[in-house]
């Protein structure tokens, strides 16, 4: 009986997963604020860390978040062409694309890493992305852990 | 360089003068070409008009035979044939799925590497201006010659990669080598009606008429072409056009090989110039008197 419980806990999804979101100050953070001022409701699993620009979001932050026990990591910035700092999102997009391949190759379940462009006017997109991502993480087997997890 | 020769159906039929004169000047130039064994029709306009894939597959057989025979490039004197061969080569280079299908159907390998030259590219690129110039024994000084290019040599430029598509000069340059004066006129690359020759002669006489009268107005003694289809429309239909518009034209239409042959001092008979519908007697007389 005990064993079964443990088994269950291992294979079934996490009910209250923590998600860390690294977002840029100008677009996505403002978009998330807009969701608030519009009183939209979304899953409360996300913890937002604000940075000046998606160009500042180092892919290694993803690893650190997993180490800390996050079950999902979201990176979000301004849409291509809208970067407050001209090209920060373009430069990091290249890095994310490659880093993502690297993570996947080393055995990280890429369902746990999400990237999005959310503008300051896309409060609804923010809500949608958080809800969808949270549901997805909840549905993943707990066993699909990765090598950066204790 | 091993050169393959793709005559095409016209050169074996209505435009036999083209082949006769070509082989003659190559003999004088001491250049050897080998006819592609068991070549087939390229499908001409008919195939691409109603069956795109067939229009690639038919020429592909000739390309593959030549390539497998170890040839580096093909001479296709007929503008229509060279156009179809180049188009097929281009399509096979860019469409891998079609290529696989075609190679399968041909039952022989094809790497799409062989080069295709039309007559003008062959003369100026492979033979070379210097060699041609050195063979000119009978300069055609004072003869006014209009070069008519038509469509198939120049268009579509993406595939043909031939000269300036709006204002080509390659044939005019060859004319100048013979000592003759190239005549500039407006309709160099206008269409003569092409394949509609049999099915829609009215259109052809209108379009060809425009070209002939424009050249006439610019004072040419004769017209040179590098396309059997153009030749046929300008030559065979000339009487009909004169009748339609009630105005004499009387312009002999020579293949560019014939003009070169004349400047090399070859007997007009050996160049089959008497095979044309519009007699070239006056011009030949003028040349004789030069």
């Amino acid at each position: 009986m005990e064993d079964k419980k443990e088994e269950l806990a291992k294979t079934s999804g996490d009910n209250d997963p923590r998600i860390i979101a690294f977002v840029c100050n100008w677009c996505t953070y403002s978009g998330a604020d807009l969701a608030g001022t519009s009183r939209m409701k979304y899953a409360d699993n996300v913890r937002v860390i604000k940075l000046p620009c998606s160009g500042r979001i180092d892919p290694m932050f993803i690893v650190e978040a997993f180490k800390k026990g996050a079950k999902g990591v979201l990176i979000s910035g301004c849409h291509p062409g809208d970067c407050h700092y001209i090209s920060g999102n373009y430069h990091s997009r290249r890095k994310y694309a490659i880093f993502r391949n690297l993570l996947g190759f080393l055995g990280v379940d890429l369902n746990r890493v999400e990237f999005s462009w959310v503008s300051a006017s896309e409060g609804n997109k923010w809500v949608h992305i958080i809800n969808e991502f949270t549901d997805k993480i909840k549905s993943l087997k707990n066993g699909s852990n990765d090598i950066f997890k204790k | 360089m091993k050169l393959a020769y793709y005559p095409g159906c016209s050169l074996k039929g209505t435009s036999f003068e083209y082949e006769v004169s070509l082989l003659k000047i190559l003999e004088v130039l001491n250049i050897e070409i080998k006819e592609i064994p068991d070549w087939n029709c390229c499908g001409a306009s008919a195939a691409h008009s109603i069956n795109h894939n067939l229009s690639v597959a038919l020429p592909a057989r000739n390309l593959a035979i030549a390539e497998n025979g170890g040839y580096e490039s093909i001479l296709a004197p007929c503008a229509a044939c060279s156009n179809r061969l180049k188009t097929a080569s281009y399509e096979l280079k860019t469409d891998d799925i079609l290529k696989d299908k075609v190679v399968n159907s041909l039952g022989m390998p094809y790497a799409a590497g062989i080069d295709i030259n039309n007559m003008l590219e062959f003369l100026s690129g492979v033979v070379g201006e210097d060699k041609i110039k050195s063979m000119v024994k009978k300069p055609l000084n004072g003869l006014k010659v209009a070069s008519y290019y038509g469509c198939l040599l120049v268009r579509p430029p993406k595939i043909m990669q031939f000269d300036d598509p709006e204002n080509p000069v390659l044939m005019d340059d060859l004319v100048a080598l013979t000592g003759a004066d190239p005549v500039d006129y407006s309709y160099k690359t206008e269409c003569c009606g092409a394949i509609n020759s049999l099915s829609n002669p009215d259109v052809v006489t209108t379009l060809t008429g425009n070209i002939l009268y424009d050249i006439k107005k610019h004072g040419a003694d004769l017209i040179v072409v590098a396309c059997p289809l153009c030749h046929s429309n300008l030559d065979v239909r000339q009487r009909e056009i004169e009748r339609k518009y009630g105005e004499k034209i009387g312009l002999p239409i020579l293949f560019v090989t014939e003009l070169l042959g004349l400047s090399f001092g070859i007997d007009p008979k050996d160049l089959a110039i008497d095979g044309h519908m519009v007699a070239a007697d006056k011009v030949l007389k003028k040349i004789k008197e030069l």
Partner: protein
Amino acid sequence: MANIDEKLQKIARDLLESKEVSLIIGYTGGSHPQRMRPVFITKPEDVGRLSFNRHSVQDLAVFLKKQEVKKFGRIGIVVKGCDEKALNVLMQEYQVSRENIKIIGVECNGVIRQDLADKGETDLSENTVYDKCLMCGEHTPILHDYLIECADPQISMSGDIKPFAKIEELDSMSSEEKDVFWEKEFDKCIKCYACRQACPLCYCSRCIVEKNVPQWIDTNFGKIGNAQWNLIRAYHLAGRCIGCGECERACPVNIPLMLINGKMARSIHDLFGYKSGLDVDAKPVFGVFSESDFNDFIK
């Protein structure tokens, strides 16, 4: 072979005598006939020690990052096609300047694996050379001041390239399977950083593992720290690694590092059409961007 050595020695002598360089980095015969080791020549009378053959595996460009080599100023270096790519990257990244370096290129048709060479293997074949030689498209150094032609025949290949096959095999695994695979591999890691030392392109004066505010990488031998180190090493070399394979050769516990490097090189070529080390004038793949870069993974 002797012919190659003579040519090499003549070039070296001329360079040293004319004082165009004050150091030549090359290969010399080692303790064992099938082993070559690096040699540093500063005097014209020592050039007789220089030699090159199919056992000259090491990428000598690695020495260019060393302070004790840098102080020589103008340096001559013997490079194979693969090594020359490392030079290109070092020049792209301002670590070496073209004026200070004389490139003695040697054409190479493959080098024999050390483990086999030690057993006496001397034949060049698909089965005896390093994996990198099977994938090599640049046998002849493009950028060079001198070029010595190779006497070795080109290796004939069956067309079935092992390294690619292994990448594909891993790609087709589930993430759990990959995790298991890498956990086993990384478990062996003893954090000796030999991979870093052997890499001609790991030239930071303070490696990120040594940065402790914040502590980017767990420095203990734990599972996580091992994985983190191997990840960041591969990430920092992505788009730069020229595939010389020195890291894997240096690894005392035989972690298949080139598998990760190869995967990265492939991804970068697939996504951005870039191959590192081929063009000294090219902009590094992570120094530029295109508005139309791959965007499908972003919502």
